[in-house]
C-alpha cells in the first residue's frame, strides 16, 4: 500500500515538474507547480511529517503560489517566444541530464541499501508538538532571526513596489 501511494504521488510530482519546465505559458507552469507541491505534501505525510505537510499546503500551495499567479495576472505575462537555442546544448543537454540522474541514483542506491524501508507510522516525531518544542528550545535563536528576516522582507517588498522608483 505504501509503495503504491509513493509511486502514484511520485509520478504525479515528476510529471508536473516536467510540465513546469516545458510549458511556455507561465500560468500553466504555476498550476503544474501547485500539483508538485500537493503531491509532495502527501509524500511528507508518508514520511511522518504531519506538521510540514500541512505547512506545505498552506504556505507553498496556498500563499506563495497565489502570489505567483497574482503577479502573472498583474503583468499579463504571455507565452514565451521560442528563440534559437545553441545546437550543442540541444544535442547534449538531455543525454547529460539522464547520465547525471543515473549516476546520482546509482550512488544513492549504493549508500542506502534496500533494507532502509520507509514504513508509514514508524516515525511519530513530526507532530506540531514535537516541532514546536524543538523550535522554541534548541532552535530559538534561529527562529527569532527568521522573524527579523521576514520583517526585512516585508519592508523590502514595500519599498521595491512603491510607485516612484
Amino acid at each position: 500500500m505504501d509503495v503504491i501511494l509513493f509511486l502514484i504521488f511520485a509520478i504525479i510530482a515528476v510529471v508536473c515538474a516536467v510540465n513546469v519546465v516545458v510549458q511556455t505559458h507561465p500560468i500553466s507552469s504555476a498550476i503544474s507547480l501547485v500539483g508538485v507541491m500537493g503531491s509532495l505534501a502527501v509524500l511528507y505525510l508518508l514520511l511522518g511529517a504531519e506538521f510540514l505537510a500541512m505547512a506545505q499546503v498552506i504556505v507553498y500551495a496556498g500563499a506563495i503560489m497565489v502570489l505567483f499567479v497574482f503577479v502573472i495576472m498583474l503583468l499579463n505575462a504571455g507565452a514565451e517566444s521560442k528563440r534559437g537555442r545553441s545546437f550543442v546544448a540541444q544535442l547534449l543537454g538531455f543525454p547529460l541530464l539522464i547520465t547525471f540522474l543515473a549516476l546520482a541514483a546509482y550512488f544513492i542506491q549504493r549508500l542506502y541499501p534496500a533494507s532502509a524501508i520507509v514504513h508509514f507510522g514508524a516515525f511519530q516525531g513530526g507532530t506540531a508538538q514535537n516541532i514546536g518544542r524543538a523550535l522554541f528550545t534548541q532552535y530559538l535563536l534561529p527562529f527569532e532571526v527568521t522573524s527579523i528576516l521576514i520583517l526585512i522582507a516585508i519592508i523590502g517588498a514595500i519599498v521595491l513596489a512603491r510607485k516612484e522608483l
Partner: protein
Amino acid sequence: MSGPPLAWYLILSAVLFSLGIAGFLFRKNIITIFMSIELMLNAVNLSFIAFSYQLKQVNGHIFAFFVMVVAAAEAAVGLAIILTVYKNRETLNVDEVNSMKF
C-alpha cells in the same frame, strides 16, 4: 507491511532538483525561472524530511521549516523586484535585462 526504500525518496528528490536546474537554465521568462527555484527548494525539503525519518530525529523537519520561511520571504521580495523590472523595462525576458553585462 512493506514500504518503499528510503533511496526512492532521495532519487525522487534528485529528479525534482535536476528538473529545477533544467528549468532555471533553459527558460527565459523571469517568473518561470523563479518557479524553478521554488521547485529546487521543494526537492531539498524532501531530502531533509527523508533523512529526518531515517535518523528518527526532528531536526530535519526544523530545517525544512526554515527553508519554507526563507522561500516565502524570497518570493515576496523577488516578485517585487520582478514588478519593478517590468515597470522599467516592459519585458520579462531575462535576455533583454542585460545592463550589467560586460
